């Protein structure tokens, strides 16, 4: 979810790609040959500095330790709605001016809301770093919202929901699968919110949420680019360090999932479906809750089973058996309380989803019975480690990786040492992790298909 999307085919492609990256290796990075600076301001705000001196620009991000999973009952979507509203005004900045000021200083800005965090960023020439810091610090405490702001922005968010979700059967199915996977924990509620609840969000709701969570001790500053830790420290002290804490958000304790005991199946029939598919998600530990090497093992497992054309699933379902045209798996381990491990396959033709599901089950059954080979483990590990080198080419991706790790409770060292820790994963770790997670009673299986009766109802 973000404030707006920009007009660029590359960005759209990047977004599609992000699906894979985010779900397979987001919170992870290799020994980055960079000297990451880290310190904490007196008010508790953490700061991370990632030097990249190749171009005279910086990425400035503030992450808040609050996301959609921290919302009150009945107020789904408030974290994301508030993210939009932070682009309105303060005493110093007239409503709607924030992004315009950034733009006329040659910068770009945006924001994002996830289950566990909300983040704001600007990319700008390094001599404007102080300016965006001053502006970001200002809106951490001085937001002003009018009733008119609320009314139009709520309409915008409703349109955003229609664009992202309601117009797309595949997104509706994913939303329903999450709702079924999490029977009690708030990860089951969509980040953008249920439409009926979004429609009722008020100015009061937004301000209460803002006052409860937007305070320096609940924020993390990440600056990447052509700066030194010393420079950032001085500026951060001046603009963020002087802010007083206005709230104590307290520990982030969410309702735990009861022990999963039943296999769930979701069938979505929609006449807008052109090509059906099957998807399965398992409740898994995340990096935040995993024991030992579990999360690392799951990252390697998904690389082996379902990443790209050399994965087990692609080779079996697409190349050998020809029952699918595309298939894959993912592990989202970069969340606080739970991760998910998932599979999908799109049938070649006709669309016998039950048959296709059996093929997926065969791949899963094989790994449960026989584990993976040492050779597979070594190959996958090497690929994951090489990915982190590519990360060095993008200061904004680096900033995101560190920000996301820290905001869900990991440390800078966890990120930097991820590579070494991957080296400690054994085939037994992978077999154990698979046995723990890939149990049908922990899963939801979703079918996306056309309605059974194929009567033409359209008038075209």
């Amino acid at each position, binding site marked *: 979810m973000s404030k707006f999307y920009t007009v660029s085919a590359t960005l759209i492609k990047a977004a599609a790609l992000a699906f894979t990256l985010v779900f397979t290796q987001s919170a992870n990075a290799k020994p980055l040959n960079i000297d990451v600076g880290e310190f904490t301001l007196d008010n508790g705000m953490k700061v991370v500095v990632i030097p990249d001196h190749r171009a005279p620009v910086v990425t400035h991000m503030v992450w808040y330790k609050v996301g959609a999973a921290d919302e009150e009952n009945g107020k789904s979507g408030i974290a994301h709605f508030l993210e939009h509203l932070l682009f309105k005004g303060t005493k110093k900045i007239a409503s709607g001016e924030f992004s315009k000021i950034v*733009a006329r200083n040659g910068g770009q800005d945006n924001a994002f809301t996830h289950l566990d965090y909300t983040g704001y960023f600007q990319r700008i*020439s390094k001599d404007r770093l102080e300016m965006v810091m001053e502006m970001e610090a200002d809106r951490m405490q001085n937001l002003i919202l009018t009733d008119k702001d609320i009314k139009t922005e709520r309409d915008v968010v409703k349109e955003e929901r229609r664009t992202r979700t309601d117009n797309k059967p595949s997104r509706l199915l994913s939303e329903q699968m999450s709702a079924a996977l999490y029977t009690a924990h708030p990860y089951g509620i969509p980040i953008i919110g249920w439409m009926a609840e979004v429609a009722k969000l008020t100015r009061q709701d937004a301000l209460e949420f803002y006052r409860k969570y937007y305070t320096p001790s609940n924020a993390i500053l990440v600056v990447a680019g052509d700066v030194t830790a010393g420079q950032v420290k001085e500026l951060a002290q001046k603009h963020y360090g002087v802010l007083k804490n206005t709230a104590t958000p307290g520990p982030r304790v969410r309702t735990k999932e009861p022990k999963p005991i039943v296999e769930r199946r979701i069938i979505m029939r929609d006449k807008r479906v052109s090509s059906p598919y099957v998807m399965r998600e398992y409740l898994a530990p995340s990096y935040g809750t995993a024991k030992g090497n579990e999360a690392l093992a799951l990252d390697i497992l998904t690389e082996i089973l379902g990443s790209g*054309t050399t994965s087990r699933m692609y080779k079996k379902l697409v190349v050998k058996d020809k029952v699918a045209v595309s298939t894959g798996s993912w592990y989202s381990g970069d969340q606080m309380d739970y991760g998910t491990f998932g599979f999908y396959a799109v049938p*070649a033709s006709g669309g016998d989803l039950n048959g296709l599901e059996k093929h997926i089950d065969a791949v899963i059954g094989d790994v449960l019975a026989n584990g993976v080979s040492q050779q597979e483990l070594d*190959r996958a590990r090497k690929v994951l480690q090489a990915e982190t080198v*590519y990360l060095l*080419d993008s200061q904004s991706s680096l900033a995101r990786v560190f920000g996301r790790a820290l905001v869900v409770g990991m440390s800078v060292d966890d990120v930097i040492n991820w590579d070494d820790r991957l080296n400690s994963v054994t085939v037994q770790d992978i077999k154990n992790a698979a046995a723990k997670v890939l149990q049908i009673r922990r899963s939801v299986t979703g079918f996306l298909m056309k309605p059974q009766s194929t009567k033409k*109802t359209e008038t075209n």
Partner: protein
Amino acid sequence: MKIFSIVVSLFAVLIAFTTASRAIEIQEVKSDSGVTAWLVEDHSIPLIAMKFSFNGGAATDPLDKTGLSEFLSGMLDEGADDLTSAQFQAAINDNSIKLGFSASQHRFDGSLQTLSVNRDIAFSLLAKALTAPRFDKAPLERVRRQFLVSIKQDKEKPRTISTRAWLKTMVGKDHPYARPRSGTEAGINAINANDLRDKAKKIFTRQSLHVAVTGDIDAKTLKQVLDQLFGSLPEKSDIAPVIEADVFSQPKIQVIDRDIPQSIVQFGHKGIKRKDKDFVTAYVLFNIFGSGQFGSRLMEEVREKRGLSYSAYATLYPLRRAGLIFGSAATVNARVGETVQVIKDEFKRMAEDGPTQVELDNAIAYLTGAYALRFDSNSKIAGQLLANMKLDLGIDYIKRRNSLISAVTLVDVKRVAKRLLHADQLVFTIVGKPKNLAATSN
């Protein structure tokens, strides 16, 4: 409006950028066989990015094999020379090489990224892909199945439906641009290995080739690589010319009925091409009018004031054989009529009054200042170089570019707004169940 203690002038933005561009030193590297590349050396991280482009793309695909160029782009990493598809893919994967191809209407592009330690294997795989692709039956049939499913999916995507219908109106149903670039069912079914081989032979020539490279490689090494990759390709071939489109210039509102809660509203009319003398001015104008960022006219009127759409933009769409202007928004069915009216009003208002001096100053400050953000990674720099090569802008363009933008005056931009924007010629294509709207056709 300086509300902050840090006062920033436009002058400072320009200074900042001059420094940025100076850091980017482009070397022109010419190989023994005459292949030329632009290189930006940077040894600070162990990665190499190469982007290249040939003339000839989807617009020259045979009518009965629509989708051939895209099909070719999907087949080049499916086995070459002594490597089967599985062996080729394993080599790519195990060495963490990122290799991809794509076809646009007039060009065929490739992109290779590799860790510098895997440089030799990466270039050797690319050389095989370009000079000896196998097109074996099994991978060919698999890729065909993938295309057929993707074509089916596209038929139900509201945005794709809308864009295709709009383009068909604008260039006429018989122009190559009106064909789906990723192919038709009949076209994809008709393609065989010989077609792919012929297409590759036609496209992969040295005359039309552009190559941009950044990262951990020096000019001497690159010279050899250029010969290894492209030296054996034929000098040139005949690519069929593409006819000029007779661009539609009447107003039209087309509604395509789909049962979705939100209508896709796409719109536009005739525009200009990249070589037009007013292009740079028009580019600045469209930043003001339709960039999709806060502050742009459409975003302010459609989204910020009325909450009609999450995104609202309009952009120059300069195809080689058709200059177009294209825009998009999406709104709940009940508010389509209002959205269409606001868009028409904004076209009219901008044509009549043009932007204000403040809007122009802001746009110039943004466009010149943000240019540096396109050069903060190896792969982005390679992309920028290649784009400039394709447009024949010259090796010094990066240094000149901001002064071109800054030279645009209010008089220019008002004149170009009047020349380009025509509310009475807008063609709307709406996919959904719009209410309160009279379509002029279905």
